[in-house]
């Protein structure tokens, strides 16, 4: 993949970044960043959301131009004009969100992204060879629409490898993988580094950074705060560098009492309503008062469909399929279910959980106009709205959940991702619901906000509510859950006590170990 003699060149480093800064108007996204990557090493780039990781990487990859500072590639100062120039140099990047064409084959997708000189010959043959060499099984003639997220990521990696990169940048690659798939990816990365390729690995999963990376540079608020050897650190000390103070440790007491079933799913079957959707097959689940049950799974295995079926966004012909607080509500609307003291927080906060163009108080009204919690009604007279009351609730949420916005009643879309998530979660938690269903509670939220949200969920459950958490983050699941089930291809596994379950077992379940074969053909 690369010539070993490069390693002995005068510059010790393959890529060096010196005093690199990027200003967006007055805002300094990167301030005097220094970074050095050696050939054959995996270098972690750590930081919270908004710490400036993406900006830095985009400058290295040529998608953004630095305001000042130098990029030094193999001891030469260079200017990377655009991503094509970066690829020419030997810098490849695997993005977090893939820009693939669903209706085209693997080969066609890769061919579209390759420079002319690499397209020639039998491309599908080369793809097949390279993918089997690196343990990335891929059928060159398959349509992307038929592939899993993990396989789609392999397309991106193979595309990069075909260009024989000297430096591979990977942006949160394991966010979409099962633990087993992640292990396979680590094998590929180790193989690459043994051939002299360097990897810049962006992640906020500290355990895997410790496991995989040789070096780590930590960013906070656009500045480098530390360069450390991840092997010599603990996950806690790495987190401390990232956040700048010690992260709030979540307090939970186990062995508490749980009560009766507040949420039950009984033989829930729900055909998908979109072509890319997943059918739910015979889902059974009980969530008791006082406990948190988590559903793990790789994205796109029916989590969204399950959430909609429980919240009432899609109703079910079978009344008994969903039972909230002993009321059969398969056909009840979402407000009908809210009136049973259930609350729902969907995955997508912008556009689903909140209307971006509406102020926060309107967003409170939208999800709470039909319910009276603690005797509070939001309407005044026949058609009026009690704005004073809405303002009070908004202030209360902002205070309790640390929602920071430019003005008290800002438009939802103007809040940062983490703050909007705190608002959306806070809006529902403020009701003190008896049943809470929450999909991806801390997706794309910084560590501080995530800790706050998780603590609030635990506190609510310990007051006797039943909470169902759907999450792809295993760390989060082990932090929160009393019991865990795994969803794969619309089928839910048995529910296990969290302390009896290892990551490996969850991984096996994620890849479908519990699926009933009869169902695979009946759908």
């Amino acid at each position, binding site marked *: 993949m690369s010539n070993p003699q490069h390693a002995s060149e005068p510059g010790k480093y393959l890529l060096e970044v010196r005093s690199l800064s990027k200003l967006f108007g007055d805002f300094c996204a990167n301030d005097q960043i220094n970074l050095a990557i050696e050939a054959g090493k995996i270098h972690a780039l750590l930081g919270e959301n908004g710490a400036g990781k993406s900006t830095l990487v985009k400058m290295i990859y040529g998608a953004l131009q630095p305001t000042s500072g130098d990029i030094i590639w193999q001891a030469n100062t260079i200017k990377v004009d655009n991503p*094509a120039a970066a690829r020419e140099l030997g810098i490849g990047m695997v993005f977090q969100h893939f*820009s*693939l*064409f*669903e*209706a*085209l084959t693997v080969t*066609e997708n890769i*061919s*579209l*992204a390759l420079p002319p000189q690499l*397209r020639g010959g039998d491309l599908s043959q080369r793809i097949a060879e390279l993918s089997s060499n690196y343990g990335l099984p891929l059928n060159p003639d398959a*349509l992307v*629409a038929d592939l899993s997220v993990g396989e789609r990521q392999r397309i991106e990696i193979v595309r990069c490898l075909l260009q024989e990169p000297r430096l591979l940048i990977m942006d949160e690659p394991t966010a979409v993988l099962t633990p087993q798939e992640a292990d396979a990816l680590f094998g590929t990365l180790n193989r690459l580094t043994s051939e002299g390729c360097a990897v810049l690995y962006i992640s906020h999963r500290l355990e895997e950074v410790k496991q995989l990376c040789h070096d780590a540079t930590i960013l906070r608020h656009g500045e480098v705060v530390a360069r450390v050897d991840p092997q010599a650190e603990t996950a806690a000390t790495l987190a401390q560098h990232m956040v700048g103070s010690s992260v709030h440790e979540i307090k939970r007491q186990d062995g508490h009492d749980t009560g009766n079933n507040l949420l039950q799913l009984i033989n829930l079957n729900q055909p998908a309503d979109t*072509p890319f959707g997943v059918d739910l097959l015979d889902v059974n689940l009980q969530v008791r008062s006082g406990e948190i049950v988590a559903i793990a799974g790789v994205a796109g295995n029916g989590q969204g469909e399950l959430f909609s079926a429980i919240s009432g966004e899609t109703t079910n012909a079978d009344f008994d399929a969903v039972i909230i607080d002993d009321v059969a509500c398969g056909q009840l609307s979402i407000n009908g279910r809210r009136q049973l003291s259930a609350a729902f927080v969907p995955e997508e906060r912008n556009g689903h959980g909140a209307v971006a163009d509406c102020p926060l108080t309107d967003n409170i009204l939208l999800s709470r106009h039909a319910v009276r919690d603690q005797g509070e009604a939001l309407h005044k007279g026949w058609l009026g709205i009690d704005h004073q009351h809405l303002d009070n609730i908004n202030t209360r949420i902002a205070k309790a959940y640390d929602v920071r916005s430019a003005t008290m009643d800002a438009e939802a879309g103007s809040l940062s991702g983490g703050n909007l998530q705190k608002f959306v979660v806070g809006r529902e938690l403020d009701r003190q619901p008896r049943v809470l269903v929450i999909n991806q509670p801390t997706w794309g939220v910084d560590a501080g906000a995530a800790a706050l949200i998780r603590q609030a969920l635990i506190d609510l459950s310990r007051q006797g509510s039943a909470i169902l958490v759907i999450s792809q983050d295993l760390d989060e699941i082990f932090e929160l859950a009393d019991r865990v089930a795994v969803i794969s291809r619309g089928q839910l596994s048995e529910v296990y006590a969290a302390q009896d379950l290892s990551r490996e077992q969850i991984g096996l379940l994620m890849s479908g170990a519990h699926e009933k074969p009869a169902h695979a053909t009946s759908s």
Partner: protein
Amino acid sequence: MTAYETIILTVITASTPLLLAAIGELVVERAGVLNLGIEGMMAMGAVSGFAMAQVTGSAWLGVLFAMLAGVAISMLFAFLTQSLVTNQVATGLSITLLGLGLSGLIGGGFVGMPGIKLDYVAIPVLSELPLVGKLIFGQDPLVYISILLTVGVAYTLKKTRIGLIIRAVGQNHHSAHALGYPVIKVRYACIAFGGLTSGLAGAYLSLVYTPQWIENMTAGRGWIALALVVFSTWLPARLAAGAYLFGGVWILGLYAQGMGVGIPSQFLSSLPYLATIIALIVISTNRRLSVINTPASLGQGFVPDR
């Protein structure tokens, strides 16, 4: 000429303008653009071709001018929908109204004039073959061109890099743009190709099918062409089969009317549209079919990120 030959010949001449207009629209839609202005572009092609042939006395110059007229009016559509990002449905409808109206205005002085017909091309020897010779090898040149175009489009879309780029642009214009492909330029080129074949289809009507100029002589063929593209699920081979099927049904309707068959002619002339509706239902129930061939960004305007 036997009755059998006459019928086949009329079917081919009825089908060719449909195929010409539809094969262009197929490319346009594969690139993710919905141009509802085919009827108007055909009308412009018909009147321009007829007028040029009258002025110069050459049917071939008429054909050439008809294609230019089709491209010109399609570029108006392209400018509005691609550069100004107007709504494609509304713009396409206005192009149809504009083309029909403008062609009536231009053609006012040509009504009733005897037309100039494009000569048949008989391929030597082969056209003398019994039974099929005259039908396959004794057609007007535009029939051959329509078939060559269909084969060419099928090959280009499936086998060549240009075709891959067109499909990519129609599938997901954001990704295509991110990879550095000029989405808007590709769409301009495809729209121009659609205008060219629509103009050609119009010329076929006024220089071959009925060599004269009559206002509204396109008689809804542009809409059938549009329906055909959907009917074919955006595949050129199916498009050709569909065009000949639709042409056949059309002629069948005329013959049935002439012979006084007890089926209302309105029913027969509605058959192509019924077939399209059924095709749409079949496509929508077959997920795989809809995923693979339907251009996912069809009808959506593209504004590149700044």
